[in-house]
């Protein structure tokens, strides 16, 4: 079983805080990987404009590093800031790590005045191009994300050791949202791309569990022929893609995600005020119904955070916090490590029908139940 931790706060904080939560929950993973996503970035030595895209990944050789530079230059991106981690390579298991990079770019002038959709596509295609380029060259270049205000780090090993290896406690890079997953290697081989969180066009999710309906869902997503729906080194990657499909392609509200991945039972839909619509939605999106035990934690470009459970609530997850600071974790000790100064009696453990949403203002969390009316004008 993997362990998940997410912290969201108005004031930027160090990702190391989330790693301490991972340390508290260390019984739950085997050190086969750590994934970190930082959103709402703040650099100590650079005044970052959150409109500029940030590319994060790993160059495994100098040649890959050179190729990265030339590819980005060819596509017209101007480098604004290159964050250098103070690394201790001896503390990392893998030996082919030339450079961990988090680099801020300026969009090519050609994209000035282009629609948001075109810009978002370009960012995704650039990331996929870099990924493909790395795969063509013996996997010597790994690109995790390329998006404004988002940085990602993935590495094989124990979370705390990776944090120390990259000196993440030095406060040189902080963020308002941080997601972390400590991986328990399950069905699929250890691969950097298989580490959570998964990222596509600003949307990220990480999961604790096993998605037993992975293959039919993957087959359906591949059939959409959307360039970003690829990879699938992990059965959990589809959770991010379904969230992307729900929000970006179907343009549905966040609440629809839960109705798509874990629809209500027929008997419940018969009583639901929008039951007819929701049955239709379930049928239309039937191939996206997830299965198995899963707790899914996600974040959106506006810094909204969410947590949903599988339909049988077979994985644990707790949420707690106070005005301005909230934390999601697989275990209560994880929440306690991230927000010690909260009232633990107000912690909440979502059940099968719940979606927990922490909106960007972070005043309070929303506990939305699937049995509640569905917020969409078109079905009123």
């Amino acid at each position, binding site marked *: 079983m993997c362990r998940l931790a997410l912290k969201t706060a108005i004031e930027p904080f160090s990702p190391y805080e989330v790693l301490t939560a991972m340390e508290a929950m260390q019984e739950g993973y085997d050190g086969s990987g750590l994934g970190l996503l930082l959103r709402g970035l703040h650099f100590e030595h650079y005044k970052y404009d959150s409109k500029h895209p940030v590319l994060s990944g790993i160059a495994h050789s100098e040649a890959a590093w050179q190729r990265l530079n030339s590819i980005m230059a060819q596509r017209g991106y101007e480098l604004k800031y290159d964050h250098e981690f103070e690394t201790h390579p001896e503390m990392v298991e893998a030996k082919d790590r030339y450079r961990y990079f988090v680099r801020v770019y300026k969009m090519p002038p050609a994209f000035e005045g282009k629609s948001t959709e075109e810009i978002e596509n370009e960012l995704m295609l650039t990331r996929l191009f870099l990924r493909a380029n790395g795969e063509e060259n013996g996997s010597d270049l790994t690109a995790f994300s390329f998006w404004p205000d988002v940085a990602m780090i993935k590495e094989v090993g124990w979370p705390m050791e990776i944090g120390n290896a990259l000196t993440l406690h030095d406060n040189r890079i902080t963020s308002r949202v941080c997601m972390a997953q400590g991986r328990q290697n399950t069905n699929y081989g250890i691969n950097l791309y298989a580490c959570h969180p998964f990222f596509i066009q600003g949307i990220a999710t990480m999961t604790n569990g096993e998605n037993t309906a992975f293959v039919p869902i993957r087959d359906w997503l591949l059939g959409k022929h959307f360039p970003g729906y690829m990879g699938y080194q992990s059965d959990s990657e589809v959770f991010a893609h379904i969230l992307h499909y729900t929000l970006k392609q179907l343009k549905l509200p966040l609440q629809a995600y839960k109705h798509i991945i874990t629809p209500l039972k027929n008997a419940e839909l018969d009583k639901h005020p929008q039951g007819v619509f929701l049955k239709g939605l379930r049928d239309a999106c039937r191939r996206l119904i997830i*299965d*198995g035990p899963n707790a899914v934690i996600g974040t959106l470009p506006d810094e909204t955070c969410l947590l949903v459970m599988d339909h049988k609530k*077979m994985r644990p997850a707790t949420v707690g916090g106070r005005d301005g600071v909230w934390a999601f974790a697989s275990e209560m000790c994880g929440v306690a490590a991230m927000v010690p100064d909260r009232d633990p009696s107000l912690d909440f453990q979502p059940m099968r029908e719940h979606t927990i949403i922490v909106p960007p203002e972070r005043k309070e969390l929303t506990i939305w139940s699937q049995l509640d009316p569905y917020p969409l004008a*078109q079905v009123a």
Partner: protein
Amino acid sequence: MVSARSVSVGPSSLGYTDLPWIIQHREDRCTLCGRCTAVCPKEAIYLAYRRQRMPKLDVLKKARGNEYRTFVGIRQKTNMANACIGCSMCTMVCPNEAIMPVPNTNEHRTLFFHNQKGQPQTRGGRRNVSGPNLLDRIMFDRISMLTDPALDAGRHEFNLTTTLGRTLPPEEFLKRQSEGGWIPPTREIFPFVIGSMSFGALSPNMWLGLLQGVAYCNEVLGIPVVMCTGEGGCPPWVLKSPYLKYIVLQIASGYFGWDEIIRAIPEMQCDPAAIEIKYGQGAKPGDGGLLMWFKVSKLIARLRGVPEGVDLPSPPVHQTLYSIEESVMKMIQTMSTAFGHKVPVYPKISASTSAKSVLNNLVRNPYAGGLLIDGIDGGTGAAYNISMDATGHPIASNVRECYLDLVAQGKQNEIPIFAAGGIGKNGNVTQNGMALIMLGASGVHIGKYIMQSVAGCLGNEKSRCNVCNLGICPKGITSQNPKLYRRLDPDLVAERVGEVFMSIATEAKKIMAPLGRSQSLPVGMSDALGISDKDAADRLGIRYVC
């Protein structure tokens, strides 16, 4: 040379050991009650009086002579028309265990004489190939154990339903939803459907029993089973009843019974589950249905709108057909319109290498609600043996190919594929059905298995019984003769329907629980399948295990 007429053996003369079944009769147990001879559907046995000479020699008197003993016993006829079919009805009625048919373990020579009067063999049943089939050999090997608390088949909730009917792509669904456009009708049904067996092929008691059983499954057990009528209409009292919602009405090339159905539309209390348009049948591809004159009773004649006692051969093709594409398109649209676009309409075709082209036509037809593909191992009430044994395509690879074709187009959720043909042939109905579902079928149709399990049909793939076409069904399942079908108690058939579907539901959970699936039917979950046959694994795109 003139033949020796004194030897009464001709080219077609057969002895007991030439027959597929040999009657073993014990005279010491026989009470001469005559039940066996009365019940035998083939009149294969008769009570015979025989005289035995007892030579008598009295040495002292130097006299010799004969005495004669008369004895009676059951004898077997050896002509083709009366050859024993091994149904064992004689054994079942015998009060004294004096008689039973025994399979001939030698190769039997009737194989060479199934062409009397120039008429090739016709029969009912399935392709005569016995032993484990490909579906029986598939294993569910992706056990979700490493990370999970296993699901509990007995306590957890499982969603065992599937969608019948066309589903729109999500984008189109939302668009039509907001614009108030037409959303194609769908049904949530149990994935094991009672396949098309016509009112005509089946006896009234069998039909009534099935219908009662299906209603019981839906209304008491909560298992949403539907059944298909086959060609030949539906009794008017069913058409006008609230049970019509459990019925899939079939239209085939003879259009039998559709006068009654169309006339009943204004009086229908509910819509039928679906309309099935039969273009082909796995057991006899390229051939139409065939109801022999002796099965066309007064009731059947009325339902089908034909005179009594005439052969009813459905043509192999639909008479409105200019091209198959056009026919499929027009008929589907017409049937959909007839029921106000509120009932899913789908075609049934025989499995074939050309199935994909039909499927791709359907993908572009907005009214098509699915595709049923019927494989070579499917059963039938009447067909030429050559059609059943040698014509057609096995279901597994055909369904898999069609499913993968839809996957490549991203349309696998839009057109459900249903599979039929040999599911449960060796009794493993749930295993066979779930294997097909994981290969990509949304559900399966079972016909012969239902006859065998709910009504005790005696037919098998070793030439046992299989006389459905002759109207002499010893169990009264496929006969229109009241003397035969009164043997079948509809209430007991209904009870068996309930038992069979409860058991399938439990077994389906027992398969899904270890795979970690409970939220939705594992359609296309091919990663859960393995087979110890490398070629089959490659062909189906599943794991080779050994």
